[in-house]
């Protein structure tokens, strides 16, 4: 059991995709205009990551090396489409607010990266835990960034108003604010990790 816990902690802390590995930057920056958007994007990615890690760890011996990338991409794209259809059918608000970035989960380098570096070398159970760990790390990164941007930009967190919107610095919701907020968050994380 300890081994699996370590895998989760590793994904969350040591190989945090947002602050340490710096992978999957497109959705990280684009969808974090509010805390709730960041959280839903993180969970959507985590779903695809866990499923694709699981299936790929089963398929690892059945795919010849030369065609492993197309097979992995097909598996990931399938889960992304499943997710897309499910969201459209049952949670249309989330589908509307994340828009283009749902199909773009396919090219999120976190997912293909984990398939290559973890799921293709480990068993199904370990791969699931790796998906959970990395997925949680990614969700945490996106939610934290979303909270900071929503708070600084519009004075609320998860829609709860903390100070009047007119005092917010709008720039943090706009594209430049995404880069700058993440830049400072990374600096803080670096400081904590003692790099």
């Amino acid at each position: 059991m300890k081994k699996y816990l370590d895998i989760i902690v590793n994904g969350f802390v040591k190989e945090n995709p947002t602050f340490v590995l710096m992978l999957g930057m497109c959705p990280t920056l684009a969808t974090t205009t509010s805390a709730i958007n960041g959280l839903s994007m993180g969970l959507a990615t985590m779903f695809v990551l866990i499923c694709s890690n699981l299936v790929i760890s089963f398929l690892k011996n059945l795919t010849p090396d030369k065609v492993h990338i197309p097979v992995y991409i097909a598996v990931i794209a399938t889960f992304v489409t499943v997710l897309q259809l499910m969201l459209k059918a049952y949670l249309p608000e989330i589908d509307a607010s994340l828009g283009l970035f749902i199909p773009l989960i396919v090219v999120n380098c976190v997912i293909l990266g984990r398939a290559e570096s973890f799921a293709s070398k480990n068993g199904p159970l370990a791969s699931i835990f790796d998906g959970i760990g990395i997925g949680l790390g990614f969700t945490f990164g996106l939610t934290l960034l979303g909270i900071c941007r929503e708070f600084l930009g519009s004075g609320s967190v998860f829609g709860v108003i903390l100070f009047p919107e007119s005092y917010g610095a709008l720039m943090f919701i706009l594209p430049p604010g995404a880069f700058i907020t993440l830049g400072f968050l990374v600096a803080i994380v670096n400081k904590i990790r003692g790099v």
Partner: protein
Amino acid sequence: MQKLGNTLVNMTVVLTLVAIVTGVILAYVNNVTKEPIDEQKKETLASGIKSVMQDNNLQVVSTDTVKKTEQEDNKEYTYVIYSVNNAKGEPLGKAVESTTMGFGGALKVLIGFNTSGDIKGYTILETTETPGLGAKADQWFQAGNKGSIIDKNPGTDKLKVTKDGGSVDAITASTITSRAFLKAVNQAYAATQIDVAEEETGVAMASEVGEQSNN
């Protein structure tokens, strides 16, 4: 288990199998979710029409799709016009779907007009406007707010932002979105007018038979 080698046969078989399996899975999921997705769309539209017409007990009697080229920019726009009756069967007015280009992409609005063409309400159906700026359009023009357009008539009131010599306050720092929104409203109004004019002169419109709403 031994890893499969890189022979041509192995590669072809694996790729074909993967293609078939993924295709089948997706076809199945698509099949399962198709109905809820259509249902969602219908429900969103039905509740949208109710909210913009300010009436919970209404019937959609006909649905017309109007294509019209606007002289202003020589582009063809498509409007969907829902004619609505109240519970007693008296005409309430029309709800119109109208799309223009906003700041970052298409801005699709549903606007409710009563029989004399006054705006009863509106709702944003699709938007890619900037959060905190243009995305405020869903509240800004509602009754009681700064830029309210409710109960105004695009035929008689000049629905333009004050910068362009009109009477509507633009959303702070989002003139482009405000212009696009008002353009959508004005064009929707114009579309209902040709609809009326052609009905009066007896020209048959190319129209689908409207579905009866469940209410």
